[in-house]
């Protein structure tokens, strides 16, 4: 009996291994999950709706009615999650009978997932809309992970957005070409507690004096953290101007030669920074927490109204105050794109169009305190008045102050080069 059992166990193991190799051999043909659409995947125009590119807006809205749209993006902002799940979801449900499903996922993971689906030859994935910008947009577009162009079909692009605005045309100096629509505007700001430090620095030179007066109590997030990387670029703008970078070649030596004064300055800053500049916090959120704990006297954010929210929530003291450099700080726009294998491109277009409406842009401005992407030239008097009435809270700068101190981003392909140079030339290094 035992012998028989041994034989049957062996047979079972054999059957298992055969079925496993069977699966392995099968991988070249497309799996059952990818056979839903019959369009041509390489054109990027297919999916569930073959002639979407030529369809009229009414036809697109009709196709989208009654469907579900998934929106993938960073999920670490409770206010934004709630806003999307309530205000935006209600708006598209009432107006278009669309169900919006918001999924929190970091952009690197979203792109990794899309790249995997591309490699596996998926034609109908699970992601419809993506929250994206900058280098991520550049690489996603280069690698064919996005659907487009689609923005010229959205009525609200024409109705509310300044189509000649450089930030509508280019994302980090890279041509958008209709592959993403603006979502919200961001701008680098710094903030301090006016009860702890009196005079906030208005330039890079003043920042050096500020660090010397508060040794060990200032730092910035280590690039490639989004905010830390922008802060380093802002220092470069302070010392080297911003114009020369707009068409610079992304070559290590060219860039290094151009930013040498800024590297000098950053090394000069090091001895007065937290941990003497031998290490830097991993993320802007860490720096924010250190500031909230009183370990630092200054913090940096890409969300210009973050202080108002922090004071509201009690995270920051009521005396916290936002400031920018006199010469300006870097601003950018973040955008919404559509995945190349989105199963519901029409629905995604309708939701993106809805978010571009004056109503939802106002609600975003009032609820999340994000700079709107609609241009005031195209707003009606009532709409403009509604925007003006929004109370932005304590400790922040007005929209005019921010926009008049706004500098353009660098080309996306310079960003990783600068991050690499920073790592080689700045961390733990001192002049002389």
């Amino acid at each position, binding site marked *: 009996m035992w012998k028989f059992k041994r034989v049957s166990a062996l047979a079972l*193991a054999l059957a298992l291994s055969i079925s496993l190799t069977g699966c392995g051999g099968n991988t070249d043909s497309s799996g059952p999950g990818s056979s839903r659409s019959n369009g041509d995947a390489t054109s990027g125009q297919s999916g569930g709706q073959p002639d979407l590119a030529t369809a009229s807006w009414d036809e697109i809205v009709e196709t989208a009615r009654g469907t579900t749209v998934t929106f993938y993006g960073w999920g670490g902002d409770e206010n934004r999650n*709630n806003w999307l799940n309530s205000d935006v979801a209600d708006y598209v449900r009432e107006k278009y009978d669309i169900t919006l499903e918001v999924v929190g996922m970091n952009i690197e993971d979203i792109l990794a997932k899309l790249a995997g689906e591309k*490699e596996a030859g998926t034609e109908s994935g699970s992601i419809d809309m993506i929250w994206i910008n900058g280098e991520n947009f550049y690489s996603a577009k280069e690698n064919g992970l996005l659907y487009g162009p689609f923005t010229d079909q959205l009525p609200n692009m024409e109705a509310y957005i300044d189509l000649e605005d450089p930030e509508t045309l280019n994302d980090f100096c890279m041509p958008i070409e209709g592959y993403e629509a603006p979502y919200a505007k961001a701008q680098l700001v710094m903030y301090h507690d006016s009860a702890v430090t009196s005079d906030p620095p208005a330039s890079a030179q003043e920042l050096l004096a500020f660090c010397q007066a508060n040794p060990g109590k200032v730092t910035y997030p280590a690039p490639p953290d989004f905010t830390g990387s922008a802060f380093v670029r802002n220092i470069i703008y302070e010392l080297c101007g911003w114009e020369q970078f707009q068409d610079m070649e992304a070559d290590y030596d060219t860039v290094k030669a151009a930013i040498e004064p800024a590297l000098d300055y950053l090394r000069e800053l090091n001895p007065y920074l937290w941990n003497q500049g031998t290490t830097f916090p991993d993320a802007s959120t860490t720096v924010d927490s250190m500031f909230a704990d009183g370990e630092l006297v200054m913090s940096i954010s890409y969300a210009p109204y973050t202080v108002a929210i922090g004071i509201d929530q009690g995270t920051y003291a009521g005396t916290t105050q936002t400031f920018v450099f006199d010469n300006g700080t870097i601003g950018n726009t973040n955008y919404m794109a559509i995945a190349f294998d989105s199963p519901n491109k029409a629905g995604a277009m309708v939701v993106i169009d809805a978010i571009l409406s004056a109503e939802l842009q106002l609600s975003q401005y009032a609820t999340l305190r994000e700079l709107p992407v609609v241009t005031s030239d195209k707003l009606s008097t009532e709409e403009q008045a509604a925007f003006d009435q929004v109370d932005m809270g304590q400790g922040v700068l007005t929209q005019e102050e921010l926009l008049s101190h706004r500098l353009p981003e660098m080309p996306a392909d310079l960003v990783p080069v600068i991050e690499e140079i920073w790592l080689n030339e700045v961390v733990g290094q001192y002049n002389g």
Partner: protein
Amino acid sequence: MNRHWCLKLVLATAAACILIPVALILVWSVTARWPWPDLLPVRLTLRTVRELFLGSAQLPRLLFSSVALAVATAVLGTAVGVLTARATELYAFPGKGLVRLCGLLPLLIPGTVFAIGIHLTLLRLGLADTLAGVLLVHVTVALPYCIAIMGDVTRAVGAGLEEQAAVLGAGPLRAFWLATLPGLMPGVLSSMSMAFILSYSQYFTTLIVGGGRVRTLALVLVPYIQSGDRPLASVYAVVFVGSALLIFFLLESAIHRMERGGKSK
């Protein structure tokens, strides 16, 4: 006496190392601001509690899906563990070492590589973004532990009792059920607990394979930790630890009742 005292000290230190951080998380879950060097929080907040119950995360649904997924992983993982251990411990067959190695593989491959690789495979099989796919991956992650635990127990129990039962005329299933399984029970419980907690705390694999469609508690908790929202991260951590402990408590008491019931027969 002296050794007794030492032991108590070690135990107290260990308890403090676990309990103090948990207590801190409890305090942080309702703290808005707690700057250095204050001993107590400067400002408390109920924002977190409001968010937990009234926010858009839908806590009951999250808890249900996390627990259901973890229980299913525990049952399936342990079942495979029991059978694999039986094959490798009680039988001799060619390629036995290979089977053992394959059982350990998910533990040896870095998590990220494992997740991306298995995502590609599941995409081709049409199982990506489905609950079944996520369950399969969780079971795979839990398997090395289940197999190792069940391997030890199976070796200790051996085949003797089952052979005896077979000699006395019991069929193979009955012999296993009545003679071997009761002896394996302690291992089965450890293996199920281990698989449960592994599934409950999976983040990256659930995210990639589930595509964000399969939502668990860990999937909501981790972004708040990453975004530095300490109060919200803490309140979700309290729910995470609390719910896991509650499940264990219920399981334990059910087993105790079962054992007592079994003995009184």
